[in-house]
């Protein structure tokens, strides 16, 4: 999931013709002062560019009436931390009069297996805090797109007439074009405001689906909300999640990984990192996983592999040769099951690596090693 920053999302909006306030991305107070003299009129809004939500309450949004005020605000924001995220960029934007604040978004409804357009006359607050009955929903057929009657319906439910009623219809089509054209998971405008009688997007939230990056290389290097190690694993095609405990878990397949975690937690273990090798049980991936694991400094690593396509003995040999080459700085417990399980276990035993058949038993061993 590539989560665009507000200004990056607004660049997309601009390319598709959505009306926006004038603004500039700056990295220092000086840049802000320069932008305010040329591109951006005063008074202005100074907005820290972070991916986490709740910027308003957290002081990441400031108002400035003069260039000096803006310069000062930018200076303070750049480099500051906001919910663990360091502010590297600030958006300085003209402050526009606001008559009404609305909400609109397009995302996937997994249940109906259809794109869903959500909109509300109660914009400007986190949509999670808007009561269900004030959020309207309509579904978009992937081939037919936005329909005219849906435009009338949205205008009516949002209480828009005349120019804004027409504008919201155009906006719906544009959001749809972005949603499909950019392979977005979410396109959200909150708030969408009525300003001087016209619609204007004051914020943007756009996330792009990972799987579509092959046709959108421009999003390839935009950071998501992953930790540096997660990022590194991501580049190698390994799902890797940091959780704060001190047991590293390596398994193959999302379901098996999660099941392993479930058993571990229930037995009092504290998972620190888990690492899903995916549907494969390629020994090379095991080696890569070990290197990543070392960087996460776990106390003990639990390897839970089901030998499906590849045989258990192949996996065990790969594992042993990797461990011999680079002796890992953590204890290892393995549970290997499936095809040629007996042979695999013999290989591990010879290398002095504990190996179990029973998941619960294996987990108890992991927890006991963790406690030492």
């Amino acid at each position, binding site marked *: *999931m590539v989560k665009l920053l507000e200004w990056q999302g607004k660049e997309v909006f601009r390319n598709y013709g959505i009306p926006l306030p004038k603004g500039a991305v700056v990295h220092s107070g000086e840049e802000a002062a320069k932008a305010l003299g040329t591109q951006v009129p005063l008074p202005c809004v100074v907005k820290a560019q972070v991916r986490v939500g709740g910027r308003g309450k957290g002081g990441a949004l400031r108002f400035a009436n003069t260039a000096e005020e803006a310069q000062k605000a930018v200076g303070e924001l750049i480099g500051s931390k906001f919910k663990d995220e360091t502010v590297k960029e600030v958006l300085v934007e003209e402050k526009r009069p606001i008559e009404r604040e609305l909400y609109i978004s397009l995302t*996937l409804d*997994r*249940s109906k*297996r*259809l*794109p869903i357009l959500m909109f509300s006359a109660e914009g400007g607050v986190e949509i*999670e805090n808007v009561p269900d009955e004030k959020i309207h929903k309509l579904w978009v*057929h*992937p*081939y037919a797109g936005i329909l005219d009657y849906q435009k009338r319906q949205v205008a009516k439910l949002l209480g828009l007439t005349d120019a804004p009623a027409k504008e919201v219809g155009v906006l719906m089509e544009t959001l749809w074009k972005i*949603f*499909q054209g950019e*392979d977005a*998971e979410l396109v959200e405008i909150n708030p969408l405001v009525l300003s001087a009688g016209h619609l204007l997007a004051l914020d943007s939230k756009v996330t792009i*689906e*990972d*799987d*579509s990056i*092959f*046709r959108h290389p421009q999003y390839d290097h935009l950071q998501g909300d992953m930790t540096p190690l997660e990022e590194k694993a991501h580049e190698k095609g390994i*799902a890797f*999640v940091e*959780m704060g405990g001190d047991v590293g878990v390596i*398994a*193959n*397949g*999302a*379901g*098996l*990984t*999660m*099941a392993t*975690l*479930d*058993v*571990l*937690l*229930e037995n009092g273990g504290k*998972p620190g990192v888990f690492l*899903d090798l*995916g*549907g494969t*049980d390629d020994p090379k991936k095991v080696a890569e996983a070990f290197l990543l694991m070392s960087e996460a400094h776990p106390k003990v690593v639990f390897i839970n592999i*089901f*030998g*499906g*396509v590849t045989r258990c003995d192949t996996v065990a040999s790969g594992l042993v040769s990797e461990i011999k080459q680079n002796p890992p700085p953590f204890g290892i417990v393995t549970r290997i*099951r*499936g*095809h040629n399980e007996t042979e695999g276990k013999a290989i591990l035993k010879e290398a002095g690596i504990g190996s179990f058949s*029973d*998941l*619960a038993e294996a987990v108890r061993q992991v927890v006991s090693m963790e406690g030492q």
Partner: protein
Amino acid sequence: MSVFVDASTRVLVLGITGHQGTIHTRGMKAFGTQVVAGTSMRKGVPEVEGVPVFESVEDAVKATHPNTACLFVPAPFAKDALFEVADAGIPLAVIITEHIPFHDMLDMLYYASAKGTRILGPNCPGIATPGAAKVGILPNVIFKPGNVGVVSRSGTLTYEIVNNLTENGFGETTCIGLGGDPVPGTTFIDALAGFQKDPETHAIVMVGEIGGVAEEEAAEYIGKHVTKPVVSYVAGQSAPPGKRMGHAGAIITRGKGTAESKVQALSKAGVRVAKFPYEIPGLVRQALKA
């Protein structure tokens, strides 16, 4: 009897000259599956693993009359391949390919349904009816013919569970891997309906995971339409909210799709819910005795 595939299944492998396509063609044949044809973008390949290779699905269909397609084609080309399969009138397309953008999958789903083609997957291990046919990448050795139907969103976890069932003396009618992607072609409900109708299936094992509301919807369906005993396990009860647990399916957002809500819904529908995957054979035994 069985669900979706049986001894009359005739498989066309799309992308048969690729690494995965070739390996799993061998696997399917070893399982006893009739693999009748393959297609490839590479020209001039006469056969792979003794299976004739064609340049287009239409050519393959004319010559060999497959009734099931198994797609190993790379994600960027999967949509077009599925269109070709649907246009050729093949009623079942099993899509192994992972990383297909969900926007593509939406197009594929509605095109296929207009043409009368069922999609299983994408990003799924496939489907196996022991003693009859396997379409996909499920390991051959874990299966035994029997009376338990298995349906799951996971891959290896399913192998583990099936293996466990088989080791405990059970066997399977059909094992269906739905895949973990956000837009699956076949849902729990489709599979449950199939097992309910299949006279040889006496008990159903349903392996869910966190994310989405597929398990909750399945629970509602079970409450209304499934009279056979269902045993379930939901993976990810300990997963932290907002983190992806390996694939796009397994994410908890906005308080929806939690393990709690799934377990609760399933229990309410009379499903025996296992706390851990290894409890499943015991629960199946109980269910079949009851």
